[in-house]
């Protein structure tokens, strides 16, 4: 199967950029009014959704785009827009079920206790929004843009209140630089995954890890929505690259995860101060919890690695190979969990014989392979902070991925919420954990900082710093797919 150069004119620009230069952003959650489906589709057909090609062209021409609209749709939203059942059935189960589908999924995602969907402000099962309209503009213009958009929707849709207002990306409410480590997508169709280069950590990933309808890190095209070529409207869709009888509704689209994470800034500062003893200790503890320095630089003592492919940020050139005991960055540190920077072979490959011995399990240390290879579990993050100092603050977390189960849910479950991550016990992510026992008698509210001098420093009974207040799984369609859904 040939790799393919990405069809930039068919991909929403959010895949390329978080539009950081536009300081204002508003997320509108919208529900189609019963009986007004046709009107809603008409609006959708007219909506001017920026593509990667338009975004790139403007950047090259140094032309500023003042207003950007991007659109994503939930499974109930697709149904409300009357996408045929036969097409709905081709969507992956995780998307169809939704982020708040059942108690088991909530358990896996850590959405329990005060994080439970039953307490959410939006996104509860049966009460999901239909569309997510992501608006980007200057701060001075964002209100007017939102108003104009709501006006444009007219009576076709109901806009959920309060609207989700976001600030400029960059610094999250706890004061840390955020959004640094992003995987580099293979925009030119050049990548051949699985070679010896991937035996160490790579930041370069196949397009199919984020975009549907392209090859992923397994050399395959994953599950995605497809339409039989004979069905109405199918002609406007790109052909499926692995089945000529089907049209690809997924191609150039992605799945979008939205989660509103309220951050208890005061609680975090009080706890780090109480445990750290003084300003210096508090800062060091906060940096250990996050796994980075406040200014975004790697923790001091992590050896810089020069041969990481696809590095987007030159300051991001490190792995944890130089810190196997966790003395510099604790194993439980948030970014070590969220992106452990492991390659296919622990410690990197050393020739064929070594590869065979490792594969058969005849070589290695007790710490090898306790963490999965990272390249199958990356996310493009497009979230933005919200709120004001002293008031309610947090992050509207947005992530793009091609497989909700293998990407978002895996990271959330196997890495962040897993009390046994990297061989730890009784501790989930110190930053975003829910702090409730994983099962009767098994706490998760601990945090361990290994020390070269001897016993680890253990923090017990950490308070909760982050509360989930809403969320959803959305389909971020390609431009042609959007037109198909709008029946334009």
């Amino acid at each position, binding site marked *: 199967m040939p790799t393919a150069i990405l069809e930039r004119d068919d991909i929403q620009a959010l895949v390329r950029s978080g539009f950081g230069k536009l300081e204002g952003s508003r997320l509108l959650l919208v529900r189609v009014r019963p009986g007004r489906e046709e009107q809603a589709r008409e609006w959708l057909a007219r909506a001017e959704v920026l593509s990667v090609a338009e975004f790139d062209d403007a950047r090259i021409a140094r032309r500023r785009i003042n207003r950007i609209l991007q659109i994503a749709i939930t499974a109930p939203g697709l149904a409300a827009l009357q996408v045929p059942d036969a097409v709905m059935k081709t969507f992956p189960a995780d998307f169809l079920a939704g982020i708040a589908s059942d108690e088991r999924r909530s358990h896996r995602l850590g959405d329990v206790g005060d994080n439970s969907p039953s307490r959410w402000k939006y996104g509860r099962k049966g009460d999901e929004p239909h569309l997510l309209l992501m608006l980007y503009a200057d701060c001075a213009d964002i209100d007017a843009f939102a108003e104009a958009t709501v006006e444009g929707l007219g009576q076709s849709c109901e806009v959920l209140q309060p609207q989700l207002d976001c600030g400029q990306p960059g610094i999250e409410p706890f004061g840390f630089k955020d959004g640094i480590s992003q995987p580099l997508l293979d925009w030119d169709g050049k990548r051949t995954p699985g070679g010896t280069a991937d035996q160490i950590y790579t930041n370069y990933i196949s397009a199919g890890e984020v975009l549907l309808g392209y090859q992923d890190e397994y050399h395959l095209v994953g599950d995605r929505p497809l339409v039989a070529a004979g069905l109405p409207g199918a002609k406007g869709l790109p052909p499926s690259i692995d089945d000529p009888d089907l049209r690809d509704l997924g191609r150039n689209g992605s799945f979008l995860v939205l989660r509103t994470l309220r951050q208890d800034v005061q609680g975090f500062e009080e706890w780090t101060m109480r445990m750290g003893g003084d300003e210096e200790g508090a800062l060091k503890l906060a940096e250990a919890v996050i796994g980075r320095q406040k200014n975004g630089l790697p923790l001091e003592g992590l050896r810089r690695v020069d041969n990481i492919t696809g590095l987007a940020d030159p300051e991001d050139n490190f792995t944890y190979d130089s810190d196997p005991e966790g003395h510099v960055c604790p194993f439980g540190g948030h970014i070590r969990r969220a992106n452990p920077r492991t390659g296919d072979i622990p410690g990197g490959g050393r020739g064929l014989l070594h590869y065979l011995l490792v*594969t058969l399990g005849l070589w290695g240390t007790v710490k090898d392979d306790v963490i999965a290879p990272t390249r199958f579990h990356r996310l493009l993050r497009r979230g933005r902070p919200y709120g004001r100092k002293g008031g309610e603050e947090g992050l509207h977390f947005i992530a793009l991925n091609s497989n909700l189960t293998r990407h978002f849910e895996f990271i959330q479950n196997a890495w962040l919420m897993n009390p046994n991550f990297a*061989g730890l016990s009784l501790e989930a992510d110190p930053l975003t954990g829910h702090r409730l026992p*994983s*099962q009767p008698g098994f706490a998760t509210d601990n945090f361990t900082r290994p020390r070269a001098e001897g016993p680890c420093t253990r923090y017990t009974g950490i308070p909760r710093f982050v509360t989930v207040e809403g969320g959803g799984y959305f389909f971020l369609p390609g431009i042609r797919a959007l037109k198909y859904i709008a029946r334009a």
Partner: protein
Amino acid sequence: MTPQHDFMIAAPLRAGARPSIDELLGSMAVEPGLADPDNPVIPFSRFSKIHFARVLVLDDPTLPDRVHFPNFYFPSPVRLALLVVCDGSAEDQIEELAELAGEGLRRLFGHCEGLDETTDLRRWLHSNRIDSATFYMNWRGRTVVQSREEQVLHDVLREELSALPAASPRETKRALREAVARRGVKLTPRDPTPPWRWLANLVDLIVVPIVILLMTPLLIVLAPILAIKLRRLERENPMIAPIRTPELMERLSLYEDRDLTSPFGAIGSVQPSLFRRLQATYILWLVDWAARHITTRGKLSRVRTIHCARWIFLDNKRRMYFASEYDGSHEAYMDDFVNKVAFGLNLTFGPAIGIPKIRWLLWGGANRERDWKNFLRRHELPTPVWYKAYPGLTCQDLARNERIRKGLESRRDDDRSIRRWLAEI
């Protein structure tokens, strides 16, 4: 060293017994899938040698896949099955089960053909025992008692360590040793390996390679024919891996993640061909030998999260049930499967009808991530009753606890190794 064994007792369900057995199995669990250790049918808490046990109905949802092969039919009854992994011999464990849970077992297997009030239960259990073709155990020799005692040791050490004032590593270790003695932490010494078993192990270790060596010339001579036959069968096996539905996923996940370890079970038919049955038999025999002698220390190939796994033939090797217990979420287990042991899955599951296309025994198949996951979920059977002797503990925890115990008993007292030891606590 105490060896671990596994066994399955399975017999066809009586006609019409399904609703009643489902209800009984439901009553044995505290939550979907998680056995009540004190349930009146099999009160697992009374057994100190059972690592894992499960009770389920082997009702294969993929039997209709056989229509892909003309005139392919064999009787494939729906069975009720009890699977146990235990310390010591299966015979002893069955005896103990009959003794301590005889009445419950009668109630359970009374739903099966051939067992009524007049039947001798012990004889019935033994005669309905089906042995696995391959049995893998994460750490051979680690008993239930040891696992539990070492966790108590870890808890005590952690508690004591947090209360100790800063001191030199040696002093800290001495203080911890004293605390362990003072608090009377029980650490049962390991059973010595009797000479006859040691000898039997040695014979077993060398006999298999000798047989392989003797068979190799024959296999080489036959290789061209076998290769042609193999490739034809691989090509003829249709891939059956439709996209997973939300309903299927919700039904299966209901029984997962109740503990940090979850049970996995999948059932399927072997492609109709004597060649396929011989292939499966030969390969599983080899893997079983490797599991007894090579992969005995915490990992199966590169996978460190599997407590145990067994491949069990049914119906004259025309079907197979695979059972395992793994740490972490199902998706993490699949990550291990696909990224680390795809070759092993292809080898052992290769003859299964509907498996994603395999090439030359090892390639394709489980490497095809999306197809593999779709294929496997279709064959999965939820486990309504599942027991684990050490709730909340993963393979990592058990191995760490054993290292901590060894460190405590070790006479090495250089600061570096003591620091390492302290860091693990």
